[in-house]
Every structure is written in C-alpha cells, then in structure tokens.
C-alpha cells in the first residue's frame, strides 16, 4: 500500500498537527481540569458547558466562528496583527488552535474525572509530609491520576487525527500547510480517486483502532480505569 509523495506530506502534517495540539492541550487542560475538579464557584457550570460545546456543535459552526475570529476584523485576528504575526486563518498555527478547541473536551474530561477520583486526601497527606504544591502535583497527583492523563493524551491525539470540518473551514486545503489526511481523502473522493481514498482511509482506520485498543489494554491492565464520561 504505497502512498504518494503528497499523501506522505499530508500524513506528516497530520501527525505534526496531532502532536502539537495534544501537547499544548495537555498543558492547558490540566489546570482547567484541576480547577473544575476542585472549584465550588458558580462558574463551574458555565465553564463545563463551554468545554463540552465542541462535542455537540457541528465542526463547521466551530470552524466558521473561528474563521471570523481569526480574520483581519475578528478579535483574534486583531490581536495577532498587533503582535505582528499577521492573521492565523489558513495557516498551520491556526489549525493548531482550531484543533485544540475542537479536542478540548476529550482532554479535559478524563483528567477532570481522574483528579476528582484521586480526591483531596492523598494531597493533604503529602502536605503533612512536607511536600509543597508543585511537589504534590508531580509526586502524588500525576502518578495517581496517570490513567486519566494517558486517556486524555490518546483521545486528544486520535480525535485531532480525524478532524475535518474545522480544518476545512479555517485551513482550507493548502499543501504542506493545511492539507491534512482527512482533507486529502475528501479531495481523492471528489476526484473519483477511490483507490487513493481507500489507502488513506484504511490507514487512518487501522491506526486509530490500534491506538484505542492499546489504550484500553493499558487501562485494563493498570486497573485504573478512568471512564470517559460527560
């Protein structure tokens, strides 16, 4: 099943996108999930709803608003222009931001649940044993919520791989810049190149299945299942 040069390019771009979005999302989602797990503020409800929004909205709606926001007249576009980096629409950076928003619930939820199930007690114990806040995070919370973080990373990664609507809306179809695998499959189908579409679709299918299978096997073995639930 040989891929063409442009297909390899799309695969490479897709992996880059998935890795960078997942990495940035983990950094962003961890404090957010921690806050959601601990806060008693009235903001918890609205923030949870916002985080879950990408689950129910059509990606095109999300992509449309992002496109508007990133455009020269949009708030995000104004900001990036004042910072001297131009607008983000139809760029790889724009795609990363779009993917992060699109995959946010898939990363926040498992971490949130894991932090909640660890509870306050182990952290209190660690404090009485002389561990400061950062120490407690790395030596107690992270290892005890490990399964949640692994789930979050895998789901965020796999979900970004399959993104289509948001990419098309804000990224278009620029080779080496924004043309990811899902978009290329669409191109192939449009051009009636079903063999090409098959090659990529099957690769994506097998890859996603393998990743998810590995995740469930790991969760099963470590017996630390952190359910992904809303």
């Amino acid at each position, binding site marked *: 099943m040989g891929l063409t040069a442009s297909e390899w390019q799309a695969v490479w771009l897709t992996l880059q996108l998935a890795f960078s979005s997942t990495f940035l999302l983990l950094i962003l989602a961890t404090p957010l999930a921690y806050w959601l797990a601990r806060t008693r503020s009235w903001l918890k409800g609205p923030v949870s709803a916002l985080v879950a929004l990408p689950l129910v909205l059509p990606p095109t709606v999300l992509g449309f608003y992002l496109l508007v926001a990133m455009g020269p007249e949009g708030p995000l576009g104004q900001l990036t222009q004042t910072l001297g980096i131009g607008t983000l629409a139809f760029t790889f950076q724009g795609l990363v931001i779009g993917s992060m928003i699109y995959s946010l619930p898939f990363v926040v939820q498992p971490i949130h649940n894991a932090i909640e199930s660890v509870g306050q*007690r*182990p952290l*209190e*114990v*660690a*404090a*009485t*044993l*002389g*561990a*400061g*806040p950062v*120490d*407690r995070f790395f*030596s*107690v919370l992270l*290892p*005890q919520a*490990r399964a949640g973080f692994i789930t979050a990373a895998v789901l965020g990664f796999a979900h970004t791989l399959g993104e289509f609507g948001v990419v098309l809306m804000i990224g278009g179809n620029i080779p080496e810049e924004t043309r990811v695998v899902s978009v290329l499959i669409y191109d192939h189908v449009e051009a009636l190149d079903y063999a090409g579409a098959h090659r990529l679709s099957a690769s994506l299918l097998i890859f996603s299945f393998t990743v998810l299978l590995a995740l469930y096997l790991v969760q099963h073995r470590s017996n630390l299942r952190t359910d992904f639930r809303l």
Partner: protein
Amino acid sequence: MNKSNGLIARFQQSFSGGFNLDVDLTLPDRGITAIYGASGSGKTTLLRCIAGLQRAQSGFLSLNGLVWQDAQRFVPTHQRALGYVFQEASLFSHLDVQGNLDFARRRSRNRDQDYLKNVVAMMGIEPLLKRSTAALSGGERQRVAIARALLSQPKLLLLDEPLAALDTSRREEILPYLERLHEEFEAPVLYVSHSLDEITRLADQLVVVENGRVEANEALSIALTRTELSISQHDDAGVILEARVVERDDQWHLIRAAFTGDSLWVRDNGDSLDTALRIRVLARDVSLALEEPGASSIVNRLKAEVEAIDETADSAMALVTLKLAGENRLLARLTRRSVHSLELCVGRPVWAQVKSVAVLR
C-alpha cells in the same frame, strides 16, 4: 523552661450550618494529649486547623514559641513540622510500603539510617517493607502510616482516631505500638478519640471538646475524677492511678501496686519490683461500706472519705467521689437508694471495696 513551650492554639471559626469552633488551648510540650468528644463536636476540625489543612477565620497557633498562625501569617501545612495520621490509613496507593516511607524521609531534615531503622522497628513493620499497600491489613496500614508520619521528623504528631476504623482485635494489636510511641517519641502527640479505653491507656492529658468548645483541659488522672464532665457518665467511667510495684505474692500470683497513701493488690503480669504501673478502677467496680468489711471475697478495701455525691445525671444511679488517704480519688457508682440507706454525706468516712483493678501499662 520557657513559658511559650508546648502548643498554644486559639481558633474561632463559624461554619455554615451553625457550628462554631471556639477554642483556646495550651498543651504540654511532651506526652500524649487525648482530645475526647462526641462525633460532630469539632475534634477533627480542631486537628485540621492545627495542621493548617483548614484555615480558621481568626486564630493563633504556636509550637514551642514558633508561630504557625497569627493575624499576619499562615504557615502552609507543608512547612509545618508535623505528622498527621488520618482515621483511615491514607497510604499512597501508587507506592509500596518502602516507597511510602521514603516519601516522608526524602522530605525531612534528618535522613539518618539509624532513625529509619528505629522507627521501622518501633512499629514492627520490617516484614512489610516490600509489600504493596493493598496487601496490608487495616492494622498494618495504620502502623505504616504512623511510621511514615514519624519519618518526617515531626515536632508535633496529630492522630485522628487512628484506631476507629479497626475492629477490636486489630485495635488490641496496634495499642502496644502506640504505647511504645508514648515512651520513645519526645514531641507532643494529640490523639483524637472517643474511646475511653484508648484514652485511659495512652493519654497523659485530656481535652474534652463539646460543640466546638473546650470543656476541660487537664491532666488525665484529675479529669477522670471530675463528675461534672460528660465522660463520667460513660459506662466505663473510672479513675486511673499511677502506681509502683512494691510487693510480690508468688503463691497467689498477685502484686501490690502502691500509690501515694495506699495500695491495691492486682494480678501479677510479671512486672518486676519498682516498675511503674498505670492502673484503672472503674466506678461501677467500687462499692461502699460504713464499717470495715469482714470476711469477703474482695481483696482490696481502701479507707476513704466521701468528697462529693452527684445524683443529678441519672434517676437511679449516683456517682460518689471518694478521697483516699493521699489525695488520690476514686469514683463509685451506686444506686441512689444505697446512698440514701447508708446516709452518705460529704465528709463521711467510708470503706471502698474495689472488685476489680485493671493494669493498663
């Protein structure tokens, strides 16, 4: 000795739901202080405020002159040299027993190998070191939790009902370790409990907490003789006497335990002469006679004087405080009818017959 030695804790905190914590405590810098009270009386809240796990709206807290909380500062828990043992052993599930101990040791000032060995030996946990925490019994978990707390080199040890989650036999298994702790650990220990049995075995000082307030704070031996405290209504109410072995009766396997002014014969548990003993006499095991009793199966009879009679707490029973020859006191629980028929009154000399005496340690 500096006046600021020991623990000074003053907290005021009102909680939603109407509960108020309002305490002002000064505690000795050595020995075990028991904090006794019904559930919901604020014992655990008090302990959490002392640990800094909870922040009282206003308060002052100092240990041996070192201020942990006042109007300006609030030292966070991890910077307070304290150990905390929770009711349910909270061992880290992602670490084995050794890992749990190392967690504390790596963060303490003294990483002395000998100290580690001592603590491990004191709690009897050498055989458990390689085990996973899930493979421990409840009692073993608590022993590991106590050892872990000790390894952080605390200047204050807080134990929140460490035996409450264990069944009776596990409790008996762990009490000797706590007694050892009492002998070997030099910093003050606060021991929250609602078990009079544990308290009389372990504590030196008793703090009674009720509705978020301190009802009493004094030496255990004195507090136990005070009939106005709620513990004296307990079925197991009684006094403790600090005694010394002065005589051995090999034929009948008894020893004579002498305390100031008098002595009692107790079962010989093999303690050598001059050993210090803590003995306990329950109020329900003491009966009174006006004249020296004649032949009786009761070995122990003490000359005493009625100091107070409390008939208020129960419609049928009265609690009589007796003063022994040397300032020590006994409590006797009698029916109110007996009080009436013996014409007991304050100042009346009586003979106290002690049916049974328990040697606590």
